[in-house]
């Protein structure tokens, strides 16, 4: 089931023996023409999940039937696209592929349509036959070309396939069309006028179930009995003896199996045969009776020449109302879970599936939806549809989503943000944290400190935020300026995530204040950074050094009290420093300390004078 993908060789460009192969399954999701199928069915699926169950009985059923029809119309639309693709391509291989896919889609629609009739609509005896007739007419079109040929010929009744076409109409219960054709034959052959009139009349009078409640089944059956007997009489009287074609038609009307089977080639399938049989022998067939007719029809039709094929078995299971069997067979035969997942979900909404307690999902519906959605996740954009499907799998949906969403390649920031939004909406905190961490790490490795910081803030990862803040500060110490000023300036409340981050933000604020020449405020802030222990000890020296220009302004900025504080800080720093040795040996450090002491002392002197002086107004 896995299909070959690209091949990886060894590097350097020279084609060498490949040793690593990349294989991918579920290639279907990459087929462009199927996109519409996946996208639109997703919309229908979501609508169904959200649809109100307040509606009961008939309205609910009508609603579900509509959903089923919508799915089918999506399948047909897809077939149309696929067909267009097939006829417009010049590549014979592609042509073949597309045609096969059209066939398969057609089979799917055939199966779905039958399931809609039997399970969703649960057509009762009477309407059941009409629905089945529609179904057959819609799906058996092998004979269309023949029909067209005859109808469009100059003299249809002379056409060699004329009677075939009449037979087709009769077999499909298309009485009006049959009668219309027959009338042409009658006008061409006046001698058979009598026979024709009788046959025409019989065909006109044939009782059929109606959709409205205009008659009960019993009434219908009664009428039908009478009519059947009338046909019988005409046949036995030899009315049609001179025209074998008409006689054969009369036999068909009487439900004569052999007569119907003679026209095997015109029906092409056993289920067409089944419906024709029912039409002419048991039009009031009940749903539960279908299985017997179906089995015998298949046996009679195949006649031991050929054995049933997968499609036959699926349809048979449907006629037997073995829903689970239908789903199982379809799962085996179809490699993509699309069909069974959506059909099963619909049947589940019709409350038709019993829950088995399963290991992989609480019931078959969930199992299939999980499979389908998982398949979508390997696609670079269809995965977003998968999210919604997981949301509607109550037992394992969430954990599947957690596992899958972590594996989506975060190739761009936009994608990462998209994924994040999905996680945040669902309170998947661990995944949010993880994704942000991964993005932060990536940014950090690429030295994009601003991006790394943003991601850690989003992840609420205090430890990482601290680490990155340290890097920022280190950068500043080395280069004398900050990078990503915008980000740091606009931290807002997220500044509080970590102490180091707070310090970074505040320190930057200090620089801003200084740049705006708001010296007293800057001074106050600087001091607070140390006294409130927001600044790490390692940074105090830098801060004190930053204080120097403030101390050496013409105007006195630091108050006496502040100056004492600064001095205390300096002493704390030099005295309590374990690397006292280092301090003493390092000339630069010693010089700095000396300068600071001097500047502080000078400031103190000036400020004492200033504060002691009574200012003139």
């Amino acid at each position, binding site marked *: *089931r*896995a299909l*070959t*993908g*690209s*091949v*990886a060789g*060894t*590097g*350097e460009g020279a084609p060498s023996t490949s040793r690593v*192969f*990349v294989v991918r*399954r579920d*290639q279907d999701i990459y087929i462009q023409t*199927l996109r519409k199928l996946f996208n639109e069915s997703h919309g229908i699926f979501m609508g169904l999940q959200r649809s109100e169950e307040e509606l009961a009985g008939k309205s609910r059923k009508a609603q579900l039937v509509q959903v089923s029809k919508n799915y089918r119309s999506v399948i047909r639309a897809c077939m149309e696209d696929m*067909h267009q693709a*097939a*006829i417009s391509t010049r590549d014979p291989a592609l*042509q*073949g*592929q597309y*045609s*096969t*896919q*059209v*066939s398969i*889609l*057609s*089979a799917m629609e*055939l199966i779905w349509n039958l399931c809609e009739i039997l399970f969703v609509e649960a057509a009762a005896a009477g309407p059941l036959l009409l629905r089945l007739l529609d179904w057959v007419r*819609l799906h058996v*079109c*092998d004979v269309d070309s023949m029909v067209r040929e005859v109808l469009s010929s100059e003299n249809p009744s002379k056409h060699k396939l004329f009677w075939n076409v009449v037979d087709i109409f009769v077999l499909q219960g298309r009485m009006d069309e049959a009668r219309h054709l027959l009338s042409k034959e009658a006008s061409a052959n006046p001698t058979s006028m009598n026979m024709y009139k009788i046959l025409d009349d019989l065909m006109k009078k044939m009782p059929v179930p109606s959709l409205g409640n205009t008659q009960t089944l019993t009434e219908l059956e009664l009428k039908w009995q009478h009519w059947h007997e009338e046909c019988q009489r005409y046949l036995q009287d030899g009315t049609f003896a001179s025209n074998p074609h008409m006689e054969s038609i009369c036999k068909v009307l009487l439900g004569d199996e052999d007569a119907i089977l003679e026209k095997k080639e015109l029906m*092409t399938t056993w289920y067409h045969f089944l419906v024709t049989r029912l039409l002419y022998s048991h039009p009031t067939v009940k749903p539960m009776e279908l299985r017997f007719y179906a089995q015998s029809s298949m046996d009679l039709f195949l006649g031991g*020449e*050929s054995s049933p*094929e*997968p*499609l036959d078995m*699926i349809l048979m299971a449907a006629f037997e109302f073995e829903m689970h069997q239908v789903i199982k067979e379809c799962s*085996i*035969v179809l*490699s993509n879970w699309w069909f069974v997942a959506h059909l099963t979900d619909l049947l589940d909404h019709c409350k038709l599936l019993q829950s*088995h307690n399963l*290991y*992989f*999902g609480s019931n078959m519906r969930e*199992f*299939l939806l999980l499979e389908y959605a*998982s398949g979508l996740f390997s696609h670079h954009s269809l995965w977003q549809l998968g999210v919604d499907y997981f949301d509607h799998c109550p037992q*394992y949906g969430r*954990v*599947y989503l957690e*596992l*899958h969403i972590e594996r989506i390649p975060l190739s761009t920031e936009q994608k990462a943000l998209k994924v994040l939004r999905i996680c945040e909406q669902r309170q998947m905190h661990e995944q949010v944290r993880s994704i942000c961490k*991964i993005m932060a*790490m990536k940014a950090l*490795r*690429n*030295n994009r400190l601003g991006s790394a910081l943003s991601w850690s803030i989003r992840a609420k990862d205090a430890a990482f935020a601290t680490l990155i803040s340290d890097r920022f500060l280190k950068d500043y110490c080395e280069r004398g300026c900050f990078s990503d000023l915008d980000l740091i300036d606009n931290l807002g409340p997220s500044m509080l995530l970590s102490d180091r981050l707070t310090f970074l933000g505040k320190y930057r604020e200090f620089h801003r204040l200084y740049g705006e020449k708001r010296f007293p405020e800057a001074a106050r802030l600087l001091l607070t950074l140390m006294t409130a222990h927001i600044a790490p000890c390692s940074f105090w020296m830098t801060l004190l050094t930053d204080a120097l220009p403030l101390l050496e302004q013409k105007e006195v900025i630091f108050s006496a009290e502040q100056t004492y504080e600064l001095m205390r800080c300096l002493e704390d720093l030099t005295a309590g420093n374990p690397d006292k040795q280092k301090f003493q040996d390092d000339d630069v450090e010693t010089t700095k300390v000396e300068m600071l002491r001097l500047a502080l002392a000078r400031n103190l002197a000036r400020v004492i004078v200033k504060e002691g002086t009574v200012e003139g107004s």
Partner: protein
Amino acid sequence: VWDKSENGDWHCTASWKTHSGSVWRVTWAHPEFGQVLASCSFDRTAAVWEEIVGESNDKLRGQSHWVKRTTLVDSRTSVTDVKFAPKHMGLMLATCSADGVVRIYEAPDVMNLSQWSLQHEISCKLSCSCISWNPSSSRAHSPMIAVGSDDNSPNILAKVQIYEYNENTRKYAKAEALMTVTDPVHDIAFAPNLGRSFHILAVATKDVRIFTLKPLRKEVTSSGGLTKFEIHIVAQFDNHNSQVWRVSWNITGTVLASSGDDGCVRLWKANYMDNWKCTGILKGNGSPVNGSSQQGIFNASLGSANTSLQNSLNGSSASRYFFPPLDSPRAGSRWSSHAQLLPPPPLIEQSCDADTANLQYPHPRRRCVSRPLNLLPENEGV
């Protein structure tokens, strides 16, 4: 190391010789820790590597640089496997060696990959070939590691051992041994835990085996709780018909891949009735075996070509789940013969003038179109 470019192609971006013996395994750390690899070798060492973002020129030339952050030299014999622990345990890895010692290392500072400390040394008594961490981050599960042995000497000792971390003693202790696995084990893998209470373990030995380990209530002994497990074998496949060398799980632990000396990779999956079966066979170059079709949307699931198979363990003939491979059109089958003999489908030749309200497409049973739902189409070339 290969990187995938924007257009989906894989390129080898780094290749370097470093170990002085065969490199047995490589493994990735979780991307939360950056781009980090570990390797282990016959040369008795394991190493941790980190990708360094180089000059932008390198990126353009498609080259990446990897630096060795640390070499773990504690082992006195070939180091046969190295695996990072699940990320919720921090930056931790385990190695196992041919002399039966499993070592667990931790990097306390995740930003400093050069500092690793040896936290545990576990003596398994049998030569080790593989290890697997239990990925479950549930608080109900203690850290757990499975160790496989390829010890070849004739004995019936269990070749799979499960070690669990004991919170009280702060040590790893043996919690279980799979007594039914007595042949050399080449690979072992815990499946991702979907919030289940029990664990699933795949073992590559002379065949593919899947076990479930259900924790029973912890026995309160003097050394504090050690979990006891109820062990069941839920699948056993000998399709490779030879030694199975590797097993690997998909993201959700629903598909297992195995590779063997038959040169094939096989994929195993549990159906919705919880029976494991083969869902695909690939040759060494990735191409499917037995022509499981590549075309069309819906190909039949061929599954195992060996219908002769199986698996008494799985009870019912798995053939019920598969269709027998179609080697040639079955005599009498309308489809096959027609599909082969008739000219190309008229579908293409005729213009489609059907109105959309009544789209009529060639009925799937149409003789001229190749079998839609049928298995195995055209053996190419037939």
